[in-house]
């Protein structure tokens, strides 16, 4: 391996690792808050798309189409500079990422709910369970399990997209890297951004592995067919 051109710049990265780790903390927090918000809004939205009717269903569908059709960068700039929904960059970023994620999570759950065959719902009704009771007790548990792979995908997308919060100055991982680079250490650009990339990769990898584990752990013995 050829010697790295500027050995000392790795020392610069090492010396500022605490800042990068603090940024990583913000990234992780933002991811968790956004995914949670996306889940809390997206799951009911998916259920409304499958089981709802009338204006509520149409409103939910329209909101989804609009959110999925707008670039995240535009959403976050609009919320922060246009609508000033919050003076906190963290809160604004959470709302932007959370809403966008809700729009995608609703589609994951919608597909999963629809994939559980009608017959099971009918069988639950036939033993005297109410419609909501049957959906909750029979369809939802299976749909949640079937959502894990899609959810895994969504999780990594949100994690990486938290970096967009750089445009509203939130001190997440990429912003910290950028600040280090612009704070007079422009010679260390490669080292700084390689480190930032590596941290994103490690986060994504660990998350994926954890969700793989959850998928295995909660899978139904013998498979899904009844």
């Amino acid at each position: 391996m050829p010697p790295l051109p500027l050995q000392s710049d790795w020392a610069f990265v090492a010396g500022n690792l605490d800042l990068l780790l603090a940024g990583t903390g913000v990234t992780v927090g933002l991811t968790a808050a956004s995914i949670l918000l996306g889940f809390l809004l997206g799951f009911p939205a998916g259920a409304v798309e499958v089981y709802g009717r009338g204006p509520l269903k149409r409103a939910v569908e329209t909101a989804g189409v609009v959110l999925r059709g707008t670039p995240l960068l535009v959403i976050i700039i609009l919320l922060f500079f246009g609508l000033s929904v919050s003076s906190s960059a963290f809160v604004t970023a959470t709302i932007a990422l959370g809403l966008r994620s809700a729009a995608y999570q609703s589609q994951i759950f919608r597909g999963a709910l629809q994939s559980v065959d009608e017959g099971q719902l009918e069988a639950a009704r036939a033993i005297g369970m109410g419609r909501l009771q049957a959906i909750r007790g029979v369809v939802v548990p299976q749909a949640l399990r079937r959502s894990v792979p899609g959810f895994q995908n969504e999780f990594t997308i949100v994690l990486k997209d938290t970096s967009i919060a750089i445009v509203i100055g939130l001190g997440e991982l990429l912003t910290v890297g950028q600040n280090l680079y612009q704070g007079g250490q422009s010679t260390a650009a490669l080292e700084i951004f390689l480190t930032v990339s590596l941290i994103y990769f490690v986060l994504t990898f660990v998350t994926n592995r954890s969700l793989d584990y959850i998928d295995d752990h909660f899978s139904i013995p013998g498979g899904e067919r009844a």
Partner: protein
Amino acid sequence: MSPPLLELDDVYKSYGEEQVLSGVSFEMDAGDVDVVIGPSGSGKSTMLRCVNRLTEINGGDIYLDGDCITDANTDVNELRKQVGMVFQDFNLFAHLTALENVTLGLRKVRGMDKAAAQEKGYEHLEQVGLLDQADSYPAELSGGQKQRVGIARALAMDPKLLLFDEPTSALDPELVGEVVEVMRDLAAEGITMLVVSHEMGFARSAASDIIFLDDGRIVEHGPPEQLFENPQAARTGEFLSRLTHEGE
């Protein structure tokens, strides 16, 4: 005299323009096992589904134990507690074990506590010969075993009447016997059953009456000896002879 356990009185059902049931009437007493036969599309499934109101009728009345169950103020969930159903495609709850499939209704509908529901669940799994599979999930069971769980699930609610919609027609031929055997046992125990099935062995040996449905009408209704040996309607004879030939 006590009223019949089940009575259909001039029942009509249509889907849009298509008339599926056109004035179906019959009665069953407690302990009867009536087998419904008829060509594909004749309305057999529809008729069964009207009895537990998975499908709503357009005309006529249905009575269970003397009570009209098709008027607007009938609580369908109360009705369904009393009328069990066994499906062609089993429709087991895929995420639950055999035991949990049987106990779900006991817990959620009957409100039993876990221990009592399990005890009753085991009883019914034993009744269908599946005690050793209590902890298996549906995907780990054979078709015949699945259908026996389906029967146990319906039985556990202690219904007054059990509906079977072609319970063996999704099964490999070698698995039909175990399900028919369970159904024979139930018939012998005096459980009232309305069974759509072309399993002629079962019909001959266990049925009180055979109902031949064609094009939404009951063409012939009588004891198995009459229908099989001496059918009154030409249509019945034709259908049965076709059925026997296909079975060979």
